[in-house]
């Protein structure tokens, strides 16, 4: 029974990680814009494509493979830019995402709701996101925060560099916490991230066009 519980918990942890992982810095870009993202970590390999139909909303399709459980899943995302604040050389945003997932291995559907707020200028980046779902009788909550600093102010034609620290908290029958330092760089419409904390690591690549 304990093994079954641990497997169930691990399964839902992976589901939540998947729900959170595609929520990159700008889930909604510009009208008619596409974003393609690839991510690989100890737990999964993921591909994600997203199209913004207006400056307010986008639809995304995500597919990934879970290495440990050998499962293949797909998710359909509806991303909405709830509010954007404009400042000189800075912006702040609130995004919401509603997702419907399909486990092709277990033949089951699952819902996922996500909200994210971020504020950034060319030197400081901050974000906080929360994922909520109800996979069983209990509610599941995961909160992720990121704080990033840029060593220099990037220009339009240069490469942007960020050093970030990500802290995540998970509450589902037990509490779990994780910290991970991340290096992020981007050049024009290409973004890449590398992260490791000694026990886990990940690589993320994204391009807008």
């Amino acid at each position, binding site marked *: 029974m304990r093994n079954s519980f641990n497997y169930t918990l691990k399964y839902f942890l992976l589901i939540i990680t998947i729900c959170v992982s595609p929520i990159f810095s700008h889930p909604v870009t510009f009208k008619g*814009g596409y974003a393609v993202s690839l991510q690989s970590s100890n737990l999964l390999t993921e591909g994600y494509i997203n199209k913004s139909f207006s400056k307010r909303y986008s639809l995304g399709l995500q597919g990934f493979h879970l290495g440990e459980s050998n499962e293949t899943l797909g998710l359909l995302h509806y991303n909405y830019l709830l509010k954007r604040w404009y400042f000189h050389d800075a912006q702040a945003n609130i995004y919401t995402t509603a997702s419907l997932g399909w486990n092709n291995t277990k033949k089951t559907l699952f819902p996922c709701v996500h909200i994210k707020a971020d504020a950034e200028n060319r030197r400081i980046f901050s974000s906080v996101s929360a994922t909520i779902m109800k996979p069983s009788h209990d509610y599941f909550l995961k909160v992720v925060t990121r704080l990033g600093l840029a060593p220099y102010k*990037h*220009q339009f*034609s240069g490469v942007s560099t960020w050093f970030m620290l990500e802290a995540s908290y998970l509450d589902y029958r037990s509490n779990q916490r994780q910290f991970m330092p991340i290096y992020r*760089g981007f050049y024009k419409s290409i973004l890449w991230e590398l992260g490791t904390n000694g026990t886990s690591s990940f690589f993320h690549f994204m391009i807008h066009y």
Partner: protein
Amino acid sequence: MKVIASLFFILIFSTICFSMGKPPQEIDSHHNSKSHQLNSAIPALDKAITIDVTITGMTCAICAHGIEKKLKENSEIQTIYADFDTQLIRIITQNKPAVTDDFIETSIDWAGYKVITINRY
């Protein structure tokens, strides 16, 4: 040891990237129509029209890329330059009537940003 080596590599890589970026270009905001000076990154073109658009909230290359992409849907626009320090988008065209204020405002709105001023030279 591996962590130290990784950090060292990231710092070196960042320094190289920093050196690749161009320094902020001076944009003459006090324009004189008789002695107009183009930004050195933009080639001088006979009969070229410069349109300076001031926006707000542009913080990253992805933001600027979206603005550039929407504006370049107009084939009459030859060059676009973005300056983060002054929040300025500079448009170069040789066909002034084809690049209207409405088109500029709509394109930048579709990219998710707000136009503050539009100045034509």
